[in-house]
Protein backbone atom coordinates (compact mmCIF):
# COMPACT_ATOMS: atom_id res chain seq x y z
CA UNK A 1 0.00 0.00 0.00
CA UNK A 2 2.77 2.40 1.03
CA UNK A 3 4.72 1.40 -2.07
CA UNK A 4 1.65 2.24 -4.13
CA UNK A 5 1.43 5.67 -2.48
CA UNK A 6 5.15 6.25 -3.05
CA UNK A 7 4.63 5.65 -6.76
CA UNK A 8 1.74 8.10 -6.91
CA UNK A 9 2.21 11.79 -7.45
CA UNK A 10 1.43 14.24 -4.63
CA UNK A 11 -1.93 15.14 -6.17
CA UNK A 12 -2.86 11.49 -6.56
CA UNK A 13 -2.02 10.82 -2.88
CA UNK A 14 -4.50 13.45 -1.76
CA UNK A 15 -7.04 12.12 -4.21
CA UNK A 16 -6.80 8.58 -2.78
CA UNK A 17 -6.82 9.86 0.80
CA UNK A 18 -10.00 11.82 0.07
CA UNK A 19 -11.62 8.73 -1.44
CA UNK A 20 -10.70 6.63 1.62
CA UNK A 21 -12.02 9.36 3.94
CA UNK A 22 -15.24 9.59 1.94
CA UNK A 23 -15.75 5.81 2.06
CA UNK A 24 -15.09 5.75 5.82
CA UNK A 25 -17.49 8.62 6.45
CA UNK A 26 -20.19 6.98 4.38
CA UNK A 27 -19.71 3.67 6.15
CA UNK A 28 -20.01 5.33 9.52
CA UNK A 29 -23.05 7.37 8.46
CA UNK A 30 -25.20 4.20 8.41
CA UNK A 31 -26.91 3.14 11.59
CA UNK A 32 -26.73 -0.26 13.31
CA UNK A 33 -27.79 -3.35 11.36
CA UNK A 34 -31.31 -4.71 11.55
CA UNK A 35 -32.46 -8.25 10.79
CA UNK A 36 -35.78 -8.95 9.13
CA UNK A 37 -37.50 -12.32 9.36
CA UNK A 38 -40.77 -13.38 7.76
CA UNK A 39 -43.33 -15.17 9.88
CA UNK A 40 -44.02 -17.94 7.37
CA UNK A 41 -40.33 -18.81 7.10
CA UNK A 42 -40.20 -18.61 3.30
CA UNK A 43 -36.98 -17.45 1.72
CA UNK A 44 -38.25 -16.22 -1.65
CA UNK A 45 -39.48 -12.78 -0.61
CA UNK A 46 -37.66 -9.56 -1.46
CA UNK A 47 -37.39 -6.96 1.28
CA UNK A 48 -37.68 -3.24 0.60
CA UNK A 49 -36.78 -0.42 2.99
CA UNK A 50 -38.58 2.85 2.13
CA UNK A 51 -39.05 1.60 -1.43
CA UNK A 52 -35.42 0.58 -1.87
CA UNK A 53 -34.52 -3.08 -2.36
CA UNK A 54 -32.32 -4.17 0.54
CA UNK A 55 -32.55 -8.00 0.39
CA UNK A 56 -33.34 -10.23 -2.55
CA UNK A 57 -33.96 -13.19 -0.21
CA UNK A 58 -35.80 -13.28 3.08
CA UNK A 59 -33.93 -16.10 4.84
CA UNK A 60 -30.90 -14.03 5.82
CA UNK A 61 -31.92 -10.41 5.48
CA UNK A 62 -29.82 -7.91 7.36
CA UNK A 63 -29.26 -4.27 6.44
CA UNK A 64 -28.11 -1.03 7.97
CA UNK A 65 -30.69 1.34 9.38
CA UNK A 66 -30.96 4.98 8.32
CA UNK A 67 -29.32 7.54 10.58
CA UNK A 68 -31.64 10.48 10.21
CA UNK A 69 -35.10 8.92 9.84
CA UNK A 70 -37.43 8.53 12.79
CA UNK A 71 -39.07 5.55 11.12
CA UNK A 72 -38.78 3.36 8.05
CA UNK A 73 -41.24 1.32 6.04
CA UNK A 74 -40.33 -2.31 5.49
CA UNK A 75 -42.18 -4.10 2.70
CA UNK A 76 -42.24 -7.76 1.68
CA UNK A 77 -42.72 -8.61 -2.00
CA UNK A 78 -42.69 -11.69 -4.18
CA UNK A 79 -43.02 -11.61 -7.98
CA UNK A 80 -43.82 -7.87 -7.79
CA UNK A 81 -46.75 -8.54 -5.46
CA UNK A 82 -46.77 -6.95 -2.00
CA UNK A 83 -47.39 -9.49 0.75
CA UNK A 84 -47.07 -7.18 3.72
CA UNK A 85 -45.42 -4.18 5.20
CA UNK A 86 -44.73 -2.55 8.51
CA UNK A 87 -43.53 0.85 9.69
CA UNK A 88 -40.71 0.45 12.16
CA UNK A 89 -40.01 3.21 14.68
CA UNK A 90 -37.05 3.85 16.90
CA UNK A 91 -37.34 2.30 20.32
CA UNK A 92 -37.49 4.75 23.21
CA UNK A 93 -34.90 4.48 25.95
CA UNK A 94 -32.13 3.42 23.58
CA UNK A 95 -30.74 6.86 23.00
CA UNK A 96 -27.28 6.96 21.55
CA UNK A 97 -24.63 8.63 23.69
CA UNK A 98 -24.57 12.36 23.12
CA UNK A 99 -21.52 13.71 21.42
CA UNK A 100 -19.42 16.28 23.18
CA UNK A 101 -18.36 17.60 19.82
CA UNK A 102 -21.88 18.63 18.84
CA UNK A 103 -22.26 20.54 22.10
CA UNK A 104 -18.91 22.19 21.54
CA UNK A 105 -19.86 23.08 17.97
CA UNK A 106 -23.01 24.83 19.11
CA UNK A 107 -21.11 26.88 21.67
CA UNK A 108 -18.66 28.06 19.03
CA UNK A 109 -19.60 31.59 18.11
CA UNK A 110 -19.77 32.24 14.34
CA UNK A 111 -17.54 35.26 14.67
CA UNK A 112 -14.81 33.17 16.22
CA UNK A 113 -11.51 33.85 14.51
CA UNK A 114 -10.87 30.11 14.34
CA UNK A 115 -14.25 29.32 12.80
CA UNK A 116 -12.79 27.99 9.60
CA UNK A 117 -10.21 25.82 11.38
CA UNK A 118 -12.73 24.40 13.85
CA UNK A 119 -15.13 23.77 10.99
CA UNK A 120 -12.49 21.80 9.15
CA UNK A 121 -11.92 19.53 12.13
CA UNK A 122 -15.45 19.24 13.44
CA UNK A 123 -17.26 18.68 10.15
CA UNK A 124 -15.97 15.13 9.60
CA UNK A 125 -16.67 14.26 13.25
CA UNK A 126 -20.12 15.76 12.89
CA UNK A 127 -20.79 13.44 9.94
CA UNK A 128 -19.59 10.49 12.00
CA UNK A 129 -22.32 11.14 14.58
CA UNK A 130 -24.69 8.20 14.08
CA UNK A 131 -27.91 9.95 14.96
CA UNK A 132 -29.37 13.14 16.29
CA UNK A 133 -32.72 11.40 16.83
CA UNK A 134 -33.23 9.67 20.14
CA UNK A 135 -33.61 5.88 20.15
CA UNK A 136 -32.39 3.07 17.97
CA UNK A 137 -34.23 0.82 15.61
CA UNK A 138 -34.89 -2.70 16.93
CA UNK A 139 -32.17 -5.22 16.12
CA UNK A 140 -34.72 -7.65 14.66
CA UNK A 141 -38.17 -7.34 13.13
CA UNK A 142 -40.49 -10.23 12.30
CA UNK A 143 -42.98 -9.43 9.56
CA UNK A 144 -46.28 -11.23 9.64
CA UNK A 145 -47.22 -12.51 6.23
CA UNK A 146 -50.10 -14.78 5.36
CA UNK A 147 -53.69 -15.28 6.36
CA UNK A 148 -54.67 -14.30 9.91
CA UNK A 149 -56.86 -17.34 10.55
CA UNK A 150 -58.13 -20.58 9.02
CA UNK A 151 -61.15 -18.79 7.48
CA UNK A 152 -58.80 -16.57 5.48
CA UNK A 153 -56.44 -19.44 4.72
CA UNK A 154 -59.16 -21.64 3.28
CA UNK A 155 -61.20 -19.02 1.48
CA UNK A 156 -62.99 -20.64 -1.50
CA UNK A 157 -61.87 -18.28 -4.26
CA UNK A 158 -62.74 -20.80 -6.98
CA UNK A 159 -66.42 -20.88 -5.98
CA UNK A 160 -69.08 -18.25 -6.83
CA UNK A 161 -69.80 -15.50 -4.30
CA UNK A 162 -72.52 -16.72 -1.91
Amino acid at each position, binding site marked *: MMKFFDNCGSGMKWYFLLIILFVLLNACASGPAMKVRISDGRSDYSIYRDGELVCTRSDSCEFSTPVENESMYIQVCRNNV*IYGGVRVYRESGTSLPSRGVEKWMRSTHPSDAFELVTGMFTLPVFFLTPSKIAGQFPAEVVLTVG*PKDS*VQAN*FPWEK*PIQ
Partner: protein
Amino acid sequence: MIRYIAIVLLLASALWAKTEYFILPVQLKGVHEDYAKKIISLVKEYASIDGYAIVPNKKDSDYLLQIKLFRDDTGVAVIFEKRKKNDKLVWSYGHIAYVPNDFIPIVSYVSSRIK
Protein backbone atom coordinates in the same frame (compact mmCIF):
# COMPACT_ATOMS: atom_id res chain seq x y z
CA MET B 1 -60.80 37.89 -30.33
CA ILE B 2 -63.12 34.94 -30.89
CA ARG B 3 -60.12 32.88 -31.92
CA TYR B 4 -58.39 33.59 -28.57
CA ILE B 5 -61.51 32.68 -26.61
CA ALA B 6 -61.75 29.42 -28.55
CA ILE B 7 -58.10 28.61 -27.74
CA VAL B 8 -58.62 29.39 -24.04
CA LEU B 9 -61.77 27.26 -23.97
CA LEU B 10 -59.94 24.42 -25.69
CA LEU B 11 -57.09 24.57 -23.16
CA ALA B 12 -59.53 24.82 -20.25
CA SER B 13 -61.49 21.81 -21.51
CA ALA B 14 -58.23 19.87 -21.79
CA LEU B 15 -57.45 20.71 -18.16
CA TRP B 16 -60.92 19.72 -16.95
CA ALA B 17 -61.11 16.56 -19.03
CA LYS B 18 -61.20 13.36 -17.06
CA THR B 19 -58.72 10.59 -17.76
CA GLU B 20 -60.63 7.79 -19.43
CA TYR B 21 -59.89 4.12 -18.89
CA PHE B 22 -61.10 1.04 -20.66
CA ILE B 23 -61.03 -2.06 -18.48
CA LEU B 24 -59.70 -5.07 -20.37
CA PRO B 25 -61.20 -8.51 -19.56
CA VAL B 26 -59.94 -9.56 -16.13
CA GLN B 27 -57.37 -12.35 -16.27
CA LEU B 28 -58.25 -15.09 -13.81
CA LYS B 29 -56.30 -18.09 -12.53
CA GLY B 30 -57.96 -20.25 -9.91
CA VAL B 31 -60.46 -17.50 -9.08
CA HIS B 32 -64.19 -17.49 -9.88
CA GLU B 33 -65.36 -14.83 -12.35
CA ASP B 34 -67.70 -13.38 -9.70
CA TYR B 35 -64.60 -11.81 -8.14
CA ALA B 36 -63.73 -10.17 -11.46
CA LYS B 37 -67.18 -8.55 -11.48
CA LYS B 38 -66.72 -7.53 -7.86
CA ILE B 39 -63.37 -5.83 -8.44
CA ILE B 40 -64.63 -4.06 -11.59
CA SER B 41 -67.61 -2.67 -9.71
CA LEU B 42 -65.23 -1.43 -6.99
CA VAL B 43 -63.00 0.26 -9.59
CA LYS B 44 -66.05 1.99 -11.11
CA GLU B 45 -67.16 3.13 -7.66
CA TYR B 46 -63.73 4.58 -6.86
CA ALA B 47 -63.46 6.15 -10.32
CA SER B 48 -66.49 8.30 -9.55
CA ILE B 49 -64.94 9.26 -6.19
CA ASP B 50 -61.48 10.04 -7.56
CA GLY B 51 -62.70 11.76 -10.72
CA TYR B 52 -61.68 9.61 -13.66
CA ALA B 53 -63.91 7.80 -16.09
CA ILE B 54 -64.37 4.18 -17.10
CA VAL B 55 -65.51 4.07 -20.71
CA PRO B 56 -67.21 1.15 -22.48
CA ASN B 57 -65.24 1.49 -25.73
CA LYS B 58 -61.51 1.02 -26.10
CA LYS B 59 -61.24 3.68 -28.83
CA ASP B 60 -62.67 6.37 -26.52
CA SER B 61 -60.15 5.69 -23.76
CA ASP B 62 -56.83 7.34 -22.88
CA TYR B 63 -55.45 4.26 -21.12
CA LEU B 64 -56.20 0.59 -20.68
CA LEU B 65 -56.58 -1.01 -17.28
CA GLN B 66 -55.63 -4.67 -17.00
CA ILE B 67 -56.65 -6.44 -13.81
CA LYS B 68 -55.29 -9.89 -12.95
CA LEU B 69 -56.52 -12.14 -10.15
CA PHE B 70 -54.14 -15.04 -9.71
CA ARG B 71 -54.60 -17.70 -7.04
CA ASP B 72 -51.55 -18.00 -4.82
CA ASP B 73 -50.90 -20.63 -2.15
CA THR B 74 -51.96 -18.14 0.54
CA GLY B 75 -54.51 -15.91 -1.19
CA VAL B 76 -55.07 -14.09 -4.46
CA ALA B 77 -52.52 -11.83 -6.10
CA VAL B 78 -54.39 -8.73 -7.30
CA ILE B 79 -52.42 -7.05 -10.08
CA PHE B 80 -53.31 -3.76 -11.73
CA GLU B 81 -51.59 -2.63 -14.92
CA LYS B 82 -52.09 0.79 -16.48
CA ARG B 83 -51.27 0.50 -20.18
CA LYS B 84 -51.18 2.82 -23.15
CA LYS B 85 -53.44 1.94 -26.06
CA ASN B 86 -50.43 0.47 -27.83
CA ASP B 87 -50.21 -1.94 -24.85
CA LYS B 88 -47.06 -0.33 -23.40
CA LEU B 89 -46.99 -0.70 -19.61
CA VAL B 90 -47.14 2.64 -17.78
CA TRP B 91 -47.56 1.60 -14.16
CA SER B 92 -48.31 -1.58 -12.25
CA TYR B 93 -49.17 -2.56 -8.71
CA GLY B 94 -49.68 -5.94 -7.11
CA HIS B 95 -50.93 -6.84 -3.64
CA ILE B 96 -52.05 -10.04 -2.01
CA ALA B 97 -55.70 -10.41 -0.92
CA TYR B 98 -56.63 -13.12 1.56
CA VAL B 99 -60.38 -12.41 1.52
CA PRO B 100 -62.54 -10.39 -0.92
CA ASN B 101 -62.75 -7.48 1.55
CA ASP B 102 -59.01 -6.97 0.99
CA PHE B 103 -59.93 -5.69 -2.49
CA ILE B 104 -61.19 -2.43 -1.00
CA PRO B 105 -57.88 -0.95 0.27
CA ILE B 106 -56.10 -2.24 -2.85
CA VAL B 107 -58.59 -0.59 -5.25
CA SER B 108 -58.60 2.55 -3.12
CA TYR B 109 -54.81 2.83 -3.37
CA VAL B 110 -54.71 2.07 -7.10
CA SER B 111 -57.53 4.53 -7.77
CA SER B 112 -55.69 7.32 -5.96
CA ARG B 113 -52.59 6.61 -8.04
CA ILE B 114 -54.22 6.47 -11.47
CA LYS B 115 -56.71 9.31 -11.12
